[in-house]
Each structure stands twice: as structure tokens, then as C-alpha cells.
């Protein structure tokens, strides 16, 4: 039993991004087959591309209740076939973190959450996961047939050229205990900090909620690749939405580029962004702790630096 089951996320009839990354993670712990389970109410776009990124088979489970997120039905379906797999992999998104433990409980198997690396160790799956807000890394051996919830971005999607055959899976009878409505998109239709390639976060140094416009402009200069985040201090002050908060009690982000503007770099903030590939800090206090984790820092007044940076990014991207 070396095969892996990967449960993919569908929203509004489309696969969520990250399927290739999850399949790449699955490939790390098997030379056998990787099956991708897709639960939906109808046809889903993009399934034919899953073979190329590592799915040997795409298992589709159709049910009218799957038009919106249906944790009871998806967990029941995944658990009903899970016993023939070495492990079940789910992405550590809001949905995956909700779903993984449910599948594990139904399988009577352990669940390792928010895993950043995985390998086989004998019959166990050896995983590494950040704990204590990223201040430590825990290595666990998870007995076979567990659920591994893999942090997005842990492994880049690879090319495999697998057949990607499709098969239908029966949805077992289940009780729909929770009724979930369609996702209400956030007001601006803006990119989520957890998904953006570039995150620009503002803190109390902005001085006034209206000054977030400076960060919106810088984000816009990145042409749809950047999201605006915030420290807890400004979220609690009502300057930014909860969904924008980065840190221990907010979102964990791992973008390619994180720009902290007027943020001191409290340990709880660092917990949410220290694994960004490149960190830039703009702060007028040269002793601000954010400079300890920043790859590049500018000491100065953000009201002067940010507009200059916006202009420079626009110019650089125009070329």
C-alpha cells in the first residue's frame, strides 16, 4: 500500500490553485500511484491538466450538495476510499485545515497539520511543521494511513507526464450537518494575503487609515500580483480588515516578497511572515526589530520612501 490520495479543493466549479504543489508533495512519499479526488456538483475545469503535474488518476465524486463546500460529504467520500492508501494529503488552506481533521477522525487515523516538509521513514511518514508560531520546528513520525495537511508552497509543482486517467467515485450516503453558502468575495475583489506573490503590509507607522492608500498604490504597481496586509495593531484599531492581518493571530504568509511598512516587527508579527523568501522593511527607527529579519531595509520616513518605491516599481515593470 504505497499509493497516495490527494484531496483537491474546488470552488465555483474550478480547481483552486495549488493542486500541482500538493501532487508534488505526494510524489515525495511514494513511487506508487497518486490519485486526486475531486468532489463537485458538476464539471470542473482543469482536470485534464492534472496528469501532467503528477496525478495518475483523477477520481471525481459528483453530488448536488457539492455545489458549495460540503465538509460532511467530502470527508465521508475521502474516508470511504482512504483505507487503500498510504496517506491522504490535503492543502493547508482554510478549507483544507477544516477538512483534514474530519477525514482523519473518520479514518481513525492521525492528522499532521501545516506540514512544510515530508519524507518516508520506514513505514512512517516523517514530517516537519512549524510550532510555537514558527519559533520552533517539530519533526513527527506519523504512522501510515494518516492525513497530512501540507502548507501551500512547501513543494513546487513538477512535470510528470502521468496519464491522468479519470474514474468516478461513489459518494457514500452522508448527513449534511453543516450547510455552507457560496463564498462571498471580499469587497475589493482583492487578492488574499495568503495567496499573493507579493505582500505589502502596513503598521501603526502609517498613522491614519487613509494612508493605506499609499500601500494600495504600491500594490497596484505590481500589477495584480500584490496584496495589502496589516499588523494587528492597525487591525485592532479598525484601520484594516481582519482578513488582512499577518501574524500569530492572523494569517501566515510565505510570499516571494514581503514589504513591511511602518511595522516594528513584534515577535507575533514575525510569526506570520518570517518564511517569506525576501523581506524588505521600511521604518524610521533603525533599531526596529523588523530589521533583524529583513533582507533589505530602508531607514526613513515611509511617506517619503513608499511613493518613491511605487514609482520605481512602476518603471521597472514597464520595461
Amino acid at each position: 500500500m504505497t499509493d497516495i490520495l490527494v484531496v483537491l479543493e474546488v470552488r465555483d466549479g474550478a480547481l483552486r490553485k495549488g493542486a500541482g504543489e500538493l501532487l508534488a508533495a505526494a510524489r515525495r512519499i511514494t513511487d506508487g500511484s497518486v490519485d486526486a479526488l475531486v468532489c463537485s456538483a458538476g464539471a470542473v475545469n482543469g482536470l485534464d491538466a492534472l496528469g501532467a503535474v503528477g496525478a495518475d488518476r483523477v477520481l471525481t465524486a459528483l453530488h448536488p450538495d457539492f455545489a458549495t463546500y460540503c465538509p460532511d460529504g467530502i470527508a465521508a467520500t475521502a474516508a470511504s476510499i482512504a483505507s487503500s492508501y498510504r496517506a491522504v494529503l490535503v492543502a493547508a488552506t482554510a478549507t483544507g485545515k477544516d477538512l483534514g481533521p474530519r477525514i482523519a477522525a473518520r479514518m481513525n487515523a492521525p492528522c499532521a497539520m501545516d506540514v512544510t516538509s515530508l519524507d518516508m521513514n520506514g513505514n512512517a511518514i516523517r514530517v516537519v511543521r512549524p510550532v510555537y508560531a514558527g519559533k520552533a520546528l517539530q519533526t513527527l513520525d506519523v504512522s501510515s494511513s494518516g492525513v497530512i495537511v501540507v502548507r501551500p508552497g512547501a513543494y513546487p509543482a513538477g512535470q510528470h507526464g502521468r496519464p491522468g486517467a479519470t474514474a468516478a467515485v461513489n459518494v457514500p450516503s452522508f448527513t449534511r450537518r453543516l450547510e455552507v453558502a457560496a463564498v462571498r468575495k471580499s469587497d475589493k475583489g482583492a487578492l488574499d494575503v495568503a495567496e499573493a506573490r507579493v505582500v505589502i503590509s502596513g503598521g501603526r507607522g502609517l498613522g491614519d487609515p487613509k494612508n493605506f492608500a499609499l500601500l494600495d498604490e504600491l500594490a497596484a504597481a505590481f500589477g495584480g500580483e500584490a496584496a495589502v496586509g496589516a499588523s494587528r495593531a492597525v487591525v485592532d484599531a479598525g484601520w484594516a480588515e481582519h482578513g488582512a492581518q499577518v501574524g500569530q493571530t492572523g494569517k501566515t504568509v510565505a510570499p516571494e516578497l514581503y514589504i513591511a511598512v511602518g511595522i516594528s516587527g513584534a515577535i507575533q508579527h514575525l510569526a506570520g511572515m518570517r518564511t517569506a523568501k525576501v523581506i524588505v522593511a521600511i521604518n524610521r527607527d533603525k533599531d526596529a526589530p523588523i530589521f533583524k529579519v529583513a533582507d533589505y531595509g530602508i531607514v526613513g520616513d515611509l511617506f517619503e520612501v513608499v511613493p518613491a518605491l511605487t514609482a520605481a516599481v512602476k518603471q521597472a515593470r514597464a520595461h
Partner: protein
Amino acid sequence: MKIAVCLRRVPDTTTKIVVAAGGKSIDEAGVKFVANPYDEYALEAALALKDAAGSGETTVVALGGDIVQETLRTALAMGIDRAVHLQGTPSADGLANARVLADHLRGGGYDLILCGKLAVDDYGQQTGAMIAELLELPCATAITRLDVAYGRASVEREVEGGVEAASCALPAVFSCDKGLNNPRLPSLKGIMAAKKKPLEVIAVTPDAGGVTVVALALPPERAPGKIVGEGAAAVPALMQALTSDAKVI
């Protein structure tokens, strides 16, 4: 309405982590322990619902060694009516712990079981959903809004790019996220009253489960960064670094 809240005792979030001898856990010397911040949202939600209803009973349940009684008293000081200490050593496997909690909560006649969305020590993020599955109850995790009326609950949770609303019949299990409410602080009167509130101790033995802790280690240090300059004049140097060295623009 009867409401149960599951509580965990965790190191304060400002704790500097030192790995203990043996390399599998933290060195607890000098560490200040507090109620898990997310569990405080659950406690507040329970108290607010009882306040609004004008009747009912709130119970806080914690699994752990005798020291968790200290944290249970904090919850009682906030206004929770009674506490249950499930006395035993938590397993490294979240399912084993969820099973112990579920076994205790089953048959307790609770309309609502609330947890934090995660504990800031092991970041397990599974207790609530697992308790719900074990008890075959409806569940939503990481909720930022909770309304209860006529035997049903409506909740909201944040997902990537938006908000998901959901509803279900009670009894139900929810795990609570920041944004749900602003937890109250224990009052002096509450602290005095907490000393006299009931705290029941029940010995439990979580099973070993299917997870073994191999190691706990500090993350690799980020390579020291550099200050590229001061003020707007430093922007060209920053752009140079981001485009040529780091190649992220």
C-alpha cells in the same frame, strides 16, 4: 443553554523558545503560561451567549497535568460557571486527545461545544473538528461570527479571498478565530468568586495514538540582512537588490 469550552494552557506568545534536554520539547523553566489566546474567544462567546439568554450554564474543560487547574481558574474568574479537569498526559496525536474530550462531553447535554481554532503551542488545529466527528455533530472551524437563535447557529469563517457563511442545527461544535469578539478580562470580583466555583477532577488516559515526536529544533536563522540606505535616496539601491540579486521584481 448549556455550553462547554475546551481550554488549553500554553506558553505566553512572547516566550523565547529554548529546546529542552532530549530535544523533543521546550524548556519550561521561566516560561509564563496562559490560556490559549484563541480559547479566550471561545470563552467570551460562551459567556456572551449565556448573558444574552439570561440563563444557562457554561463549563470549561481542560486536559492536562494538575497545573491546568490554574488556567481553569482563570476561565472561572472570567465568569464561566464550572470547570472540569481531565487529569492526564496529552498525547502527541491530536485525535487521542480529541477522543478523551469527546468521551467526556458525550452525554453532557451540551447545546454548544466551543474550542479555539488552534493552540499556539503545537499548532495542531484539529481538536474541534475531531470532537465534532467523534460526536457526529455539525461543525465549523475558525469562525469569526456566531449567531444563535431558535435552536440553530449561523456562523461565518474567512477563507482565501472571501467569507463563507454556514448554518446548522444545535448541538454543534465550533472552533473560534480572532475577530469573533473581544474577550473580557477577569474582574477582581470574578477572581474571588472563582475560588468557590466547582472544579471537578476526572482521571483520563489518552491512548498513544499514531504520532511520535522525533525532534523539536529552532528554525534556521535568516541570513543577516542589510540596511541599504536612508530615505527615498535608498530606493534605487533597494530596486537593484530586488531586481538583480533577489530577482523578485
